[in-house]
């Protein structure tokens, strides 16, 4: 493993001051489940590793008075899964957090690390996109809040600058009559990286079967996790029926721009988007007890 220096700030101020002053690359370390293997394999060679787990703001897991979830960037997946409240209000987040690695990995891996690592296949990203999450970023000039939709830039790249730190992820309160589902395709059941991941999220109108809003997000089929906005637009305001879901799924597949790599070919991936979009939308309706 390449050599580096290690620092563990205990406050956000310390961390920011360190980021401001220090020469050479500083990599924040949350659970390290991406970072440490990357350093070991020589894919990253930071001069500094900054352990962010002792910064209080990054360890929050609480709901505010409005019902929004504030999820500290370093909170391990295991804590998210263990929270009944998260399971009740944001089942979609719980589903995706439960998929990452095995239990040992989930005891360390954070949602913050998952998105900061910038992998197009990051399992929590489609869920966060569907849930309308925002990121709170500590910059040298103060906090910045922006939608998670603007967070990703390309494979392994986010919009964070090297002087910034992701502090928390905020998920707005879940509207009534909403449900989400995430499915990913992996050759193995567990301990695998998604060939394709699709999250769907359906909000029904106050009464009846009409869909007030639908969100569909895709992982591992573009340089970043993306929303399938055309498919979403097709569904919003309509009563979801099998034919419509089929059509939306085809649209979503068209919105994907996958590549061929060792995990799957472009056309297989595009096909999977269609299958998984159909299945996740159907599952949403099932959990909302809507008959098709």
């Amino acid at each position, binding site marked *: 493993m390449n050599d580096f220096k290690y620092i563990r700030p205990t406050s956000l101020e310390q961390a920011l001051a360190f980021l401001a002053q220090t020469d050479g690359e500083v990599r924040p370390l949350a659970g390290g489940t991406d970072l*440490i293997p990357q350093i070991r394999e020589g894919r990253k060679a930071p001069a500094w590793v900054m352990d962010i787990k002792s910064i209080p703001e990054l360890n929050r897991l609480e709901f505010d008075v409005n019902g929004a979830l504030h999820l500290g960037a370093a909170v391990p997946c*295991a804590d998210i899964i263990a929270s009944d409240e998260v399971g009740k209000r944001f089942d979609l987040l719980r589903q995706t957090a439960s998929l990452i690695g095995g239990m040992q990995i989930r005891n*360390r891996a954070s949602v913050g690390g998952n998105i900061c690592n910038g992998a197009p296949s990051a399992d929590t990203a489609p869920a966060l996109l569907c849930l309308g999450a925002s990121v709170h970023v500590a910059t040298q000039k103060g906090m910045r809040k922006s939608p998670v939709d603007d967070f990703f830039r390309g494979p392994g790249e986010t919009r964070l600058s090297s002087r910034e730190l992701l502090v928390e992820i905020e998920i707005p309160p879940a509207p009534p009559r909403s449900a989400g589902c995430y499915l990913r395709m992996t050759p193995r059941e567990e301990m695998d990286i998604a*060939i394709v991941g699709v999250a769907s999220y359906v909000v029904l109108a106050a009464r009846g079967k009409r869909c007030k809003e639908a969100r569909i997000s895709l992982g591992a089929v573009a340089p970043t996790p993306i929303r399938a906005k055309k498919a979403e637009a097709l569904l919003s305001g309509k009563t979801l029926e099998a034919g419509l879901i089929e059509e939306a799924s085809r649209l979503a597949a068209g919105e994907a721009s996958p590549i061929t790599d060792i995990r799957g070919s472009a056309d297989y991936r595009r096909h999977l988007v269609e299958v998984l979009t159909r299945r996740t939308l159907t599952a949403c309706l099932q959990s909302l007890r809507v008959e098709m």
Partner: protein
Amino acid sequence: MKSKTISLVVNGDTHQLFVQPRDTLLQVLRDTLGLIGTKEGCGNGNCGACTVLMDGRPVNSCIVLAGETDGRSITTIEGLSKGSQLLPLQQAFIDYGGFQCGFCTPGIILMARAFLDRHPSPTEAEVRQALAGNLCRCTGYDKVIKAVLAAAHGDKAPSRSSGGPAIGQRLPRVDAAAKVTGQAAFGADMRLPGMLYAKVLRSPHAHARIKRLDLTKALALEGVKGAVTGADIPPLRPEVVAAAGNMYVNTVDHWKSLLARDRVLHIGQGVAVVAATGPHIAEEALKLIEVEYEPLPVAGDVLEAMKPDSPLVHPDLLTSGTAENSDRPSNVASVLEMGHGDVEAGFRESDVIIEETYRTQMVHQGYLEPQAAVASADAAACPEPGEWGRVTVWTSTQGHFDARQSLCDLLSIPLSNVKVVPTEIGGGFGGKMTVWIEPLCVLLSQRTGRPVKIVLTREEVFQATGPGSPAVITIKAGAAKDGKLKALAGKFIYDAGAYPGSPVMAGATSGIGAYRLPNYKIECYDVVTNKPWVKAYRAPGTTQAAFAVESHMDAMAEALGLDAVEFRRRNAVAEGDPMPGDRPYNRIGFGLLLDKVAAHPAWTGEIDGASRNKGPSIRPGRGMACGMWFGAVLTSSAQAALNGDGSVSVSVGTPDLTGTRTGLLQVAADTFGIPAGRVSIAVNDTDSGGFSDGSAGSRTIYSMGTAVFRACQDAIAQLKGRAAARLRVDAEKIDYEKGVFKVKDSAEPGLSLADLGKMSLWRGDGPVVGHGSLTRMAPAPGFAAHVVDVEVDRDTGKVKLLKYTAFQDVGRAVNPTLVEGQMQGGATQGIGWALSEGYVFDNGVLQNPSFMDYRMPTATDVPFIDTEIVEAPSPDGPYGARGVGEVPIAPPPAAIANAIYRATGVRLRELPMSPERVYRALRGK
């Protein structure tokens, strides 16, 4: 590098430790604190072998920085049991046989412990989910899951009768306690004072000329004590060169492969090796080595490599064998043919003829323990070039005598100067029969005068330790309407990687060996490419061939309108039929086995209806396939010594990968007719016993078991003489039974083993040591049939296994728990080969050298592997036993392919049957 002090509580004790930022928790636990129970299988969070509890939560200690753990509390396997009292969970692993090599076991037990603390009464599915992050390559998870469930629900251990013969009983493993408490010392656990750590610089190219290699800067780094390149390896002795072609591994090729000289021939081939005072320094030193490569064209795909215009792996390689020998160099190392009868005539008599081609990829044995060795060359006696002092090597090997032979041949050291001590071994499956790192350790130790250790990383294991051959196999078979096979023609092309020596012949013969073929012809091609050099993998060559032949037999059965089992019954070989090569089969149990399958609900019953309600895209199907393995014998020696108290100590020359010590002990106990508790057994080293080949080819219980049997008989014969002298009768007058020597037809109590033991040591009779050895014995072929129910998702191509049943003729189940473990572990390796495993190359460069992208099954990918044991005693094996280890890996790929066919009407002819490949096949593209 700035060190700092951390305070860490480990198993209740507080330590102040000086750590470097890049030290992992795993390194600190193992290297600083000597807690070797925590294992490193991958270093990347992918295998779970390094699991420890941090503040009660399981984490992968290989990807936790030591610096992060300041103030934390860690529990390792050593801290789990209190004193000598095992936890019920640990006891359950012993009772249920929840481990084989035991390398994964500490991590699994810690994980299970943490899980059960929170979920005291879990379901099977929950346990599988909880253990998904812990790979086990040996057990197939069946007994692991059952052990955890039993511990949770307080189930009683499987019954074991007290008294009576040891054979046939589920005796606990002799090494059980060491394996479940983390005390067992594996290759990487060896540490000697003053030891250096060496790292190998490896080729990033599949084929390149080394234009320049400069170690000056590396050698100048502080802490670097020595280095070796290909040029430093001494030349082979002429007699070794002369004998090379006759060896299982051609020694000349082996010698060339150790470190590249002018050219690198595959990704990961060693180029230089550096020894330093610590692993970090050795790693830094590699970065300072200057190598200039000139990339050369790559012979990648095996069929391309056979073409006349392909780049040549060896410019001087001429095709050997029965084909028209050309004097043009080629990548085809040999073409061998074998046959019987007139194939064309057989096809003319056939009503159904099918011809198809099947393909498999390169796969890895996937043992969890990376290769590890330590060598110590006697400093006082070494320096003169070509002159050697004593050399001791500790290594995780399947065969220490074979390892010594190779080492001495490769480095021109006299055999008597070298002692090889086998450590506990964390799986091998054929992949630890060849010395790779040991010669490098020896050379470096000789050079530096200090002990030198090499432990490979997982990436190195994938690149440079001898995976299993990829193959392209074309089968043409014909049968008459009555369902009888008339002829078979097979072309078996096996990719050997960078040097010749694929197991093509072993594979082809065992592939067709289960069937009575009046006319057949097989052509076997051994082809070199710029890939890692292949080595044995469980039933070498057979799984590839069985995938082809057994898929083909399924198609034949269908074309003939016959049930797949019935078709095989009509063509199954029986005693007296010729084996390939025309010697007759002795007693075999294939017919018995097929009868059992034909009548078994796993074959005749309904597929579990669950999948019927899962929507139109989910299709269920059932498939079956067979497999056979002739069984290796080779050379074995054992000793049985009578102790002063009448107990017996057995020593054998075969390392124990799977519990063979226990099985061999059972053979010894029954041969003496004494309780198993009165026998001890140990694996010797090369200085303390006669030559034995390694534990491979399913030979240990069969061949070494026979040697143990003979050693015990020899001791008994000697003791009869002793008893006769003491009782003043002729030796023929002495009867021996259950530990007592009596004069025939006499009512006198006679002399017990204990009496004779006492006399041997304290009454002047002298010690008694029985010897048993053999080097030739008829093999005992083993047969298996597997039945699998699958569910195919037509939309995604994903295949799920619903139910799996393995039937096998084992001759005599010496220890049913161990036998079932072999069947389950082999089946699971075969399942991985079938569905998800395979090397992916890009121009010869390996794309997936990790457990993340080389996908071995996890606990969530396989169901319980039900086992059905058939016992058709072998004529010559100890108590009728046959070798059981190899054959269960052969049937799964074809069984699953056949099940997919029954589910979807589409036949997969290429492995792995990954979701995408199945999806494409379903779409006809």
